[in-house]
């Protein structure tokens, strides 16, 4: 089963009333959708609100999802429409500097603008989390780091990674898991266990 089929499985379950399944889709796509929305909406708090709103709209619209396109394509469309509606509502209220043209967003340097509008606390935490992940990755043995990088950044399948690394698919599966788990072990103290954790 490919990633798209896994998404479809989760959608099927959510359509049968399983909210946990939809929460797994939220966990998977929340940051990708927030990143897309941040190309339209400048303020980081507004990005969070619009992202939440887009997921709720997607949940309500689940009965209309027929699986003709990939779930993420459908979700991104909802995200873009929600962002545009949000900008329209802002325009009606008052013109502010947070409004962006869709065209302008094409050349939008996301990181700089989010730095500008993010709270200092969030910005600090964000940097810490990123540092832990990057330093943990660098500390991994070569074979684990290569396997995880080929998977997450190059988006190769296990079979392709096995061909590149000249090892069985089962070894690739094990290396990727061990790499993730090693990074997660270093990350967990930072993420905390409280219910309202922000990362």
């Amino acid at each position, binding site marked *: 089963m490919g990633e798209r089929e896994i998404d479809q499985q989760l959608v099927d379950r959510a*359509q049968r009333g399983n909210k946990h399944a939809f*929460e797994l889709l939220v966990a*998977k796509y929340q940051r990708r959708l927030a990143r897309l929305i941040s190309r339209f909406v400048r303020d980081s708090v507004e990005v969070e609100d619009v992202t939440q709103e887009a997921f709720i709209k997607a949940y309500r619209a689940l009965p209309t999802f027929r699986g003709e396109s990939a779930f993420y394509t459908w979700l991104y469309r909802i995200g873009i429409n929600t962002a545009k509606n949000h900008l329209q509502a802002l325009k009606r209220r008052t013109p502010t500097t947070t409004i962006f043209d869709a065209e302008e967003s094409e050349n939008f340097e996301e990181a700089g603008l*989010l730095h500008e509008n993010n709270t200092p606390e969030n910005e600090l935490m964000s940097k810490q989390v990123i540092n832990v992940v990057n330093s943990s*990755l660098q500390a991994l043995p070569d074979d684990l780091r290569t396997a995880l990088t080929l998977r*997450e950044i190059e988006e190769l399948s296990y079979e392709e990674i096995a061909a590149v690394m000249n090892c069985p698919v089962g070894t690739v*599966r094990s290396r990727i898991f061990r790499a*993730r788990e090693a990074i997660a072990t270093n990350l967990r103290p930072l*993420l905390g266990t409280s219910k309202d954790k922000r990362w």
Partner: protein
Amino acid sequence: MKQEISALMDGELFEDDAEAVLDKLKRNPDTHEEWRTYHLIGDILRQPDHVHVNLSIAIRERLQAEPTVLAPSSRAINNGRWFALSAAASIMALSLVAWLSVQVGSESAPQLAMQQPSAVHSASLPSNGFEDYVIAHQEFSPRLDVYGMTSYVHTVARHQKVEQP
């Protein structure tokens, strides 16, 4: 279980195994933590300059206030649609075959009906310049098969019979 979650999020499990892991995730929400953390790692590796905050808890709270969705599975809809499309295609194919057979049957009857009078008519024709004309232009006829040849032989034979007395 953690290794299975890792393989599941990469889409690298067979269908039965994937469903089993999804069932376990449903039964044990604590395992969502691994799913979320592994995805966070992937998001940071792909986007190392900034990471967005975790919205899943806030969204979960809002989802709890939402009425539960109960919709027909999109897979079932697609299966039904494929069945309907294939049934429609079969009916159309049968209709086409039936229509063609009716057309062929209805065309052959007039041809026969037209040939019979012409045969009768040619028998009553006196041997005159018409048959000479037909023989002279036989090579231009599109029917240069055995059937056409036969009619040519008949015409020449009749012509010679008329000339003999």
